[in-house]
């Protein structure tokens, strides 16, 4: 079904979406979206697909639990905030704070992502979130990472560095993949173990790369034409030695 979002306030738009899902609609196409926030917020339904035409507002797919969302343009800040399950595809760039505290599911962004992406993602047993970004990222990429996988491809760099300052600061779980050359200045080796990805590690993200290639018109060969570096925490307790018991 289609919903025309032109001139509709986010509250009413999201009500319409929830209502449609409640009725059993599984494919919802939004037209003329123009900055409405929280699209897909807390939405449930593994078989639900939402296609967003136009530019959605902040906190797209926040707390989302199952559906697949395609944004055909750019997305703004806070995509997949604390998302639990489902898939988000952004066929353009995404703003700051993508996947903050994300707990599961995947986010694929064709282009660049902003600052503070993938902060404090976490994983447990079978639930492990993934973010794949095709372009570059800003500062604090994967800060406080506690679990899950971040993949930064840098297919198009537009003259920007692959990743910004403080990449992986405070990382204590999960892994960050960087494709191609990056400036070592951006990755502190104090708490991060840096190594070229081995065959097993590449195998682990193969499906996510395939999904990226398929969604955005790349070939796997193009993506794999450059070597990948994997960043992992040196310790699960990066601040374990910081404190002493007060006498």
């Amino acid at each position, binding site marked *: 079904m289609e919903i025309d979002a032109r001139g509709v306030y986010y509250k009413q738009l999201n009500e319409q979406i929830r209502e449609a899902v409640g009725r059993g609609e599984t494919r919802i196409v939004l037209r003329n979206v123009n900055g409405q926030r929280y699209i897909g917020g*807390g939405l449930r339904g593994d078989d639900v697909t939402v296609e967003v035409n136009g530019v959605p507002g902040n906190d797209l797919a926040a707390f989302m639990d199952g559906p697949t969302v395609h944004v055909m343009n750019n997305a703004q800040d806070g995509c997949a905030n604390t998302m639990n399950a489902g898939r988000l595809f952004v066929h353009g760039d995404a703003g700051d704070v993508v996947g903050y505290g994300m707990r599961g599911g995947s986010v694929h962004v064709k282009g660049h992502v902003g600052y503070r992406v993938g902060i404090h993602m976490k994983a447990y047993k079978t639930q492990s979130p993934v973010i794949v970004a095709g372009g570059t990222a800003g500062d604090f990429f994967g800060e406080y990472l506690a679990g899950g996988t971040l993949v930064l491809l840098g297919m198009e760099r537009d003259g920007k560095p692959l990743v910004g300052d403080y990449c992986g600061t405070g990382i204590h779980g999960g892994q960050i993949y960087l494709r191609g050359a990056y400036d070592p200045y951006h990755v502190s080796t104090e708490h991060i173990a840096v190594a070229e990805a081995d065959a097993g590690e590449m195998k682990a993200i193969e499906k996510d790369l395939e999904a990226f290639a398929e969604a955005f018109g790349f070939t796997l060969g193009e993506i794999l034409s450059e070597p990948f570096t994997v960043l992992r925490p040196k310790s699960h307790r990066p601040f374990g030695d910081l404190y002493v018991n007060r006498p």
Partner: protein
Amino acid sequence: MRLATKSTVPGEFVQVVHHDRCIKCKRCVMGCGFNALEFTDRVMPGENPCVACHFCTDHCPQQCIQIHERPYAQAGHDVWSPAMQKRIVRQAESGGVLLSAMGNDRPWTVLWDNLLLDACQVTNPSIDPLREPMELRTYLGRKPERIEVETGPDGKPKLKTKIAPQLRISTPIIFAGMSLGSISLSAQKSLAMAAKKIGTLWNTGEGGLHEDLQDYADCAIVQCASGRFGVHEGYLRNSAAVEIKIGQGAKPGIGGHLPGRKVSSDIAGTRMIPIGSDALSPAPHHDIYSIEDLRQLIYALKEATEYEKPVGVKIAAVHNVGAIASGIVRAGADYVYLDGFRGGTGAAPTVIRDNVGIPVEIALAAVDERLRKDGIRHEASIICAGSIRSSADVAKAIALGADAVAIGTAALITLGCHVCQQCHTGNCSWGITSQRPELTRRLDPSVRAEMAANLLEGWTEELKEILGALGVNAVESLRGSRDRLRGVNLTKESLDVLGVKHAGE
């Protein structure tokens, strides 16, 4: 560089055993979570220093063990006290940040103790709560500016105004947020059971809701904090209310580091992190750098819960708390939770715990006043916390403008806590702040829930007595009634901020 040798700083306490009465049952040795006692041919102080948690003394069948301050006479010096010296040595040995638990233990003035309540004499009658009903039921949440009524299809009047979701509590006292991780599952369950029994609320803290406590979700405030531990759509939807935790009175501006040694399998599963890994809550929410961003998260949570749950915001009491609270209310919060600088914690850098923030009495008065001046006091409830120790503190807080209070440390004391301030070590002998199964299984939720509920019942009865003496029959009538308070031994500035007259005025 950290010195590898064991600290030379002597312990503060020592156990004295009266061996002539001791029956060598070893209950004290086995009971001590800190390995501070050992048995050779008799009970002796052990490898580690005693922290005065009193598990041994309270469980000795012969009452033959006592805890004393360890004598350590030094040349008297008020500035370079033994405590100050010990801290410096500890840091010289380690280069680390000193860590403490519980609330600020410095002898700051407790303003509650300088405020006195009014009572009726001659000119207006007091009320006997044993004869007449007293209304303590409280509703927390956004209240409408005015009520509109229309005629319904059946010809009867019907409320036209849509009322925002409200939290109904039977007494204006709720439990403060204490996460699974900072406290044990048995401790959390005790509070959850007590809250359900009394008809009030408990608070998950920021560690998520354990599956064993799902039955208590409907009386739980669930927190969404910077680490986003355990936050998912079902957690939000099954709660009584959602609370965005910005700050905590014991550690304003500081994140939380639950040490990996306290991350057991229960906690790992609830928080979604590996067993033994540190659970790090960043200092700020990385999606909140402004009041506008806060509004964005408040409404993200309201959207995710389809506007059925109140969304509150917890902050630490800091210097410009009035303006901050005003922004929080304008951002759409249904309640503001103020945590004063004496509030408790499972772990905080000592320097922060003891020196950052302001007293909650001052903050509460400033916030209530500011919201009134801005004409938005009705838009949010105020919850006051941070060392509420008695029903007198509750009554005074309500008179200063609180809708309800939250209790953390007082609640833990009902579970057996002796305020030894070692929560962060994970060794709590009482099984309250430990995650070691051999310690936590000794805390029986069915017994401790009764004790926690008893405290709330006792305080509730006392509140009724206070209201009766004041000549009012509802807690609503005391709320924000600062004229029923008088100050003693306070400066003019304090009285001005509190909005309270001096005794005799």
